[in-house]
């Protein structure tokens, strides 16, 4: 705690400024103008056009596209598998983070790199990689290719880092003294976990889960080679969009894309709410 933090003027200053209109000087304003223009050209306008395209087709195209049993099955499969994967990630991600923070063994540093490989590896390569162990030529004799299990596996691979990376820093900040205090007050290991540790990890787990779900629902590259894209079996929403684009049906593609966009937006809003709640707790 520093004097600055205790200084009421300092807090007032930041709070007032938070509401203040603008502190931009001229070069900063020009920079902001250029930045926002580029961001609009690259991201905002193209994404908005998807919404316009979908809306332009009217409710008819929307209903027809989503009413198509193949598309509906694809969306449902995507959501279901993304949820399942996220649920498993919540458990495994927290466990991995726990081991990374609290355990010590030779080669732990290598583990850090392994966790991030799914993030850095090109998705098409990820698909190929999984295919080589869990495909037709599997040395384990497990072949999930062309089944809905392949979707689960691919999503599990690409979403591996999210919960781990969200929970890890929070766990590091968690002082062992808090646990020791709980233990000294008579709490069992399990009670300490449930009443002391888990509540402080919940926002991080939720944030990681949100990212994992958003990523899972939008995955494409890793599925191309692995899932076989069989309608009603292993075809996901992104693949549907791709097929509609190839068949020159942008209205239908946009209709499905709008749903994925809405999920992405919802994810961002959820993350914002979580971080705001965490900020309030601090």
């Amino acid at each position, binding site marked *: 705690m520093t004097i600055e933090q205790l200084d009421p003027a300092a807090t007032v200053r930041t709070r007032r400024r938070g509401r*203040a*209109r*603008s*502190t*931009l000087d001229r*070069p*900063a304003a020009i*920079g902001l103008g250029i*930045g926002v223009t580029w*961001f609009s050209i*690259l*991201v905002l*306008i193209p*994404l908005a*056009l*998807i919404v316009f395209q979908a809306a332009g087709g009217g409710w008819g195209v929307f209903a027809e596209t989503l009413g198509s049993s193949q598309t509906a099955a694809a969306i449902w499969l995507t959501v279901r598998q993304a949820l399942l994967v996220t649920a498993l990630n919540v458990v495994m991600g927290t*466990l*991995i983070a*726990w081991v990374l923070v*609290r*355990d*010590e*063994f030779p080669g732990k540093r290598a583990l*850090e*790199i392994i966790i*991030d*490989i799914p993030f*850095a*590896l*090109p*998705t*098409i*390569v990820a698909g*190929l*990689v999984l295919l*080589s162990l869990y495909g037709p030529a599997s040395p384990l004799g497990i072949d999930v290719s062309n089944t809905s299990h392949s979707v689960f596996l691919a999503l*599990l*691979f690409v979403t*591996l880092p999210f919960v781990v990376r969200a929970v890890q820093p929070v766990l*590091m*900040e968690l*002082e*062992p003294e808090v646990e020791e205090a709980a233990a000294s007050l008579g709490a069992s290991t399990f009670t300490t976990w449930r009443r002391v540790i888990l509540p402080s990890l919940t926002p991080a787990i939720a944030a990681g889960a949100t990212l994992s779900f958003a990523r899972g*629902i*939008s995955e*494409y*590259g890793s599925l191309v080679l692995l899932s076989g894209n069989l309608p009603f079996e292993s075809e996901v*929403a*992104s693949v549907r*969009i*791709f097929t509609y*684009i190839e068949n020159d049906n*942008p209205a239908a593609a*946009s209709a499905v*894309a709008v749903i994925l*966009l809405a999920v*992405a*937006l919802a994810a*961002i809003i959820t*993350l914002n709410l979580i971080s705001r709640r965490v900020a309030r707790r601090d």
Partner: protein
Amino acid sequence: MTELSTVRHPRRTRATYVRRAIVLAYLFFLVVWPVSLVVIHTFSDGNHLVAALQDPVVVFALQMTVVVAFWAVIINTVFGVGMSLLLVRYEFPGKGLLNSLLDLPLSVSPVVIGLALLLAYGPRDGTFAPLLGAIDFQVIFSVPGIIMATAFVSLPLVIREIVPVLQEVGTEQEQAARSLGAGGWQTFRRITLPSIRWALVYGVVLSLARSLGEFGAVKIVSGNITQQTQTATLVVEDKYLEFERGAAYATSFLLTLIAVAALVIVTILRPKEKK
């Protein structure tokens, strides 16, 4: 504070070993074994790597990937540093909204990104097709489109690394520099930039890895034309489907090598930032 929790002798119970075993097994079957198979396939029954590097299609695609990633990273670095400074050092209306929207590219599906760019800049039906036609500038099915798609997917990575460091560093050093007579540019170059340099390198490495590996969005905007707009990831798919599996594995091996190298660099850099 991190030392407290990590260095402190962990109490080893049986549960510690059970947890460790579960985690190691999980990661072995999900990541380590599959990834190592790519390496094995690349070098089993003949050296596919040498063969692939003599295939003009593969060589062209690798060059294309490097060029595209280079420009995407340059664009995102300039944009990222500027945006981070604006977000941390200034107040303006709509800042919170902009801050949230900047995260959007990370959670939007690559296919949706491709579709979005196609709808905006497509040569036939794109909203800006007449404008682009008038100045004879082709975006989609050509290199600018691929660069845009790649820049889109990796847009927030530099910002997300720099912003927390800028916040952490605070403004006192910059104020001190100003009171000692340094102008805006001098302050940025001599004070701000050195204090964020590791975060910047970290962000650039992440962007580079992401850019080299982009697949879905590029597949849509590039048109996937062999030796014209085909990038390395697209070659992997093509070669695999054409039963040239050796070339597919060899190209994957190269991309994996780059990804892992990037990660190792990042992991080496990370603790330095903590000091």
